[in-house]
């Protein structure tokens, strides 16, 4: 396999692997089950077409890393060679078991490494690694948005748009403004689940068909996306505001000096005519 085949439909899966963020849902589906669901989804994607390929990115606590990428096929040899014994014991397709094994092992590693936890998970920061043609991105996310990564996320969304890479999102319980915008801008599907049970079925039904098949399917409707921006001064959503012409900061009232970049403004008022 070596390098990525000239395959069509590279699916880049960004999954939320923060086990703590998963805690609220543990009653319905525990973390291992969640990973299993995703592995099944990955296998299904690969089985759709022999040219399909996959990359899995774990968005973890304070970091993100590849769980699997097409370049990681050699990884298995370099690590524990004993464990290869386990592979393909049940007659599964070799390639699938490879991938499953890699993911499984990597998840274990990740969790073992984990020290103290930060509840905020920066799922989106990793989106910026993408941008290959004929690929799509699916983000599975259960943590709320944080605004610390606003600029990289927006850059990444527009990059995806430019490269024609649709971003799909499957969020659990909490709506994500970023992902709503990302899906809307790039033409992907945004799906919000009330609970994680049945996650696999949602994934298979809504996100398995590739881009070209989607046109012929009835898919979840596009929701209206709230594009309103919050002003920089009070962090309140506004419909009409003032924007600094230099740094594009938003404020809800006219300010003579931009608080962000210190540019001075004078409000241009139409000159009054002199008395005739």
């Amino acid at each position, binding site marked *: 396999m070596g390098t990525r085949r000239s395959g069509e439909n590279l699916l880049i899966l960004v999954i939320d692997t923060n086990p703590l963020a998963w805690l*609220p849902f543990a009653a319905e589906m525990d973390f291992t089950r969640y990973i299993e669901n995703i592995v099944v989804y990955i296998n299904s994607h690969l089985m759709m077409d022999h040219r399909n390929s996959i990359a899995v990115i774990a968005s973890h606590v304070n970091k993100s890393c590849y769980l699997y990428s097409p370049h990681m096929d050699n990884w298995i040899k370099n690590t524990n060679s004993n464990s290869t014994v386990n592979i393909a014991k049940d007659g599964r397709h070799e390639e699938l078991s490879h991938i499953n094994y890699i993911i499984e092992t990597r998840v274990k590693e990740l969790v073992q490494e*984990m020290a103290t936890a930060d509840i905020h998970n920066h799922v989106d920061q990793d989106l910026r690694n993408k941008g290959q043609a004929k690929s799509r991105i699916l983000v599975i996310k259960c943590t709320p948005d944080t605004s610390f990564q606003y600029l990289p996320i927006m850059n990444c969304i527009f990059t995806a748009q430019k490269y024609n890479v649709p971003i799909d999102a499957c969020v659990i319980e909490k709506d994500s403004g970023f992902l709503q915008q990302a899906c809307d801008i790039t033409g992907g599907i945004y799906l919000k689940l009330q609970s994680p049970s049945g996650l696999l079925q949602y994934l298979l039904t809504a996100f398995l068909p590739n881009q070209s098949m989607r046109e012929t399917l009835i898919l979840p409707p596009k929701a209206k996306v709230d594009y309103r921006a919050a002003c920089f001064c009070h962090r309140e959503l506004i419909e009409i505001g003032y924007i600094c012409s230099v740094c594009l900061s938003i404020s809800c009232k006219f300010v003579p000096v931009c608080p962000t970049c210190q540019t001075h403004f004078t409000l241009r008022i139409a000159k009054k005519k002199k008395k005739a």
Partner: protein
Amino acid sequence: MELAKDEELLYQNTYVKHRKMMGTFFLSTKRIVWKASDNDELQLCSYYPEIKMQKISPDTSSKVQLQLQLHNGNSFNFHFANSDSAKTERDQAKDFVQQLLIKSRKKPSKELEEKSRLLKENPELYQLYKDLVVGNIISAEEFWSNRSGMLTSSSGQNIGVSPEFLTGANVNVSGCNTLKYNLSADMIESIFKTYPKVKKKHIECVPDKMNEGEFWTLFFQSQYFHRNRASTSNNAANELFGSGASKDFNDYLQKNARSERDPLLDLTKSNTFLDEAFGTNDIDGQSAATTSNAQLLQQFNHQSYVILHSGEKRIKDIRDTLLIRVIYVLVHSDKEQNDSDTQKDRKKIKLREAVSYDELHGKDADLGPKLALKNTQVYAQGPTVPIQDVTVISQSDVEVATSNLKSKLKNWSANLVECISSEAACKAVNDLSPNGALMKSVLQVNLTQSVSQSLQDDLKKHYFALGELLRHFWSCFPVQSKGLEEKVERMAAAISKYKSSNLQRLKASLTEEHSHLADHLLEMINVAINKYKGWQDRQRNIRSR
């Protein structure tokens, strides 16, 4: 005949027959009209741009006729029937038509063609034009004023000079040792390009001192045309055109001598034969032995130069043509000493040009001033609302959960067979089926389905037309000049007119369920009208003060 406002009657003849009916022949500044004298309704009218050409009957013919051929293939014959002066009348009319045709074929018709092409290619623009201009809401000039960019986009290519433009001239030998040349406009252009002096003379002489025909006769008799043959001296011609083409060339050399110098290129030093070949070493007139061959070569060079030069705005390229450089070097090698100082500088420049390539230079990236942010933290967060509902998990919970998970994962091996319960799967499929929890809005009736195509098109038209009007209107603000003031008033009137006529019609045609479709149009109009009223009030206040 009724004349339009900007029309003027130039010629009238009451004895002109068309299809054997007597009538009156009118020429105005815009059109040609013929009206039957015994039948008021019968009349012919054609505007000059429609007319392709006119023809007249030969002198030998029994009838004195004038024929107009139109672009659409039709033609009209007019028979000048006034027995005494038919011929002079006809010629007079012919001259008028000739002049008017030329006038009408100048720039405006080209512009019209361009406009009609645009309208043809762009159905939306055409619709807009129909709605606004034909509906008399704004004038055609105003309509096009916003689109001047579209009009000027295409510029024709310059036509070069054909190598055989003179030999290609149609020569008719008509007995008596005379030759008749038929010159087309293209050929005249070519001659002008090749012999700038002829052009100059033409401008000087033609309307005042002689007519076109005489000028060209002299030209063909002059040295310009015959210079390579045995000189058939014709005094009048030589007087007009001076002593031939070499003068043109010398003028050029004098003018460009300094700038054309290339110190790195001196073919005389490498090859003495070049002297001969280019035949230019005696141009300064010191040598008496001017062979006809040398002159011929020189004229070839000159002609090449002029033709290249005529290719507009390519002068810089031409400077680089080897030919010119060589000629220069040959001619001015004796003067070399005089300007050796400046030559050194020039050499430096030339050397630099020769060894440096623009493509290899790094781009001088002038990125402008950098963004200097004082408050980067706020900036990096962007226009987002901070999260309110952060669920805090206590440290102990975290530790318990982590250790649980760790121990669980230690012996975990993915069991892919039972990873989803059938109930959960059923629910998910239901949710994602039409009418399911996540697919509710799918079945909502779409406006595109409920509104008929014709109504959609109609609405689109209205939006287009009104949008155009409003754009004109809003572009007037702030009103800073008298012209804009007038335009605002005109536009406001046009908008109200649109509201009262076109929009009313639309509203009447809408059924009950679609009645809201016109609301937005109306709203846009009202905003504009309110703005106009406010502006009017302010104007009044200013005046009354």
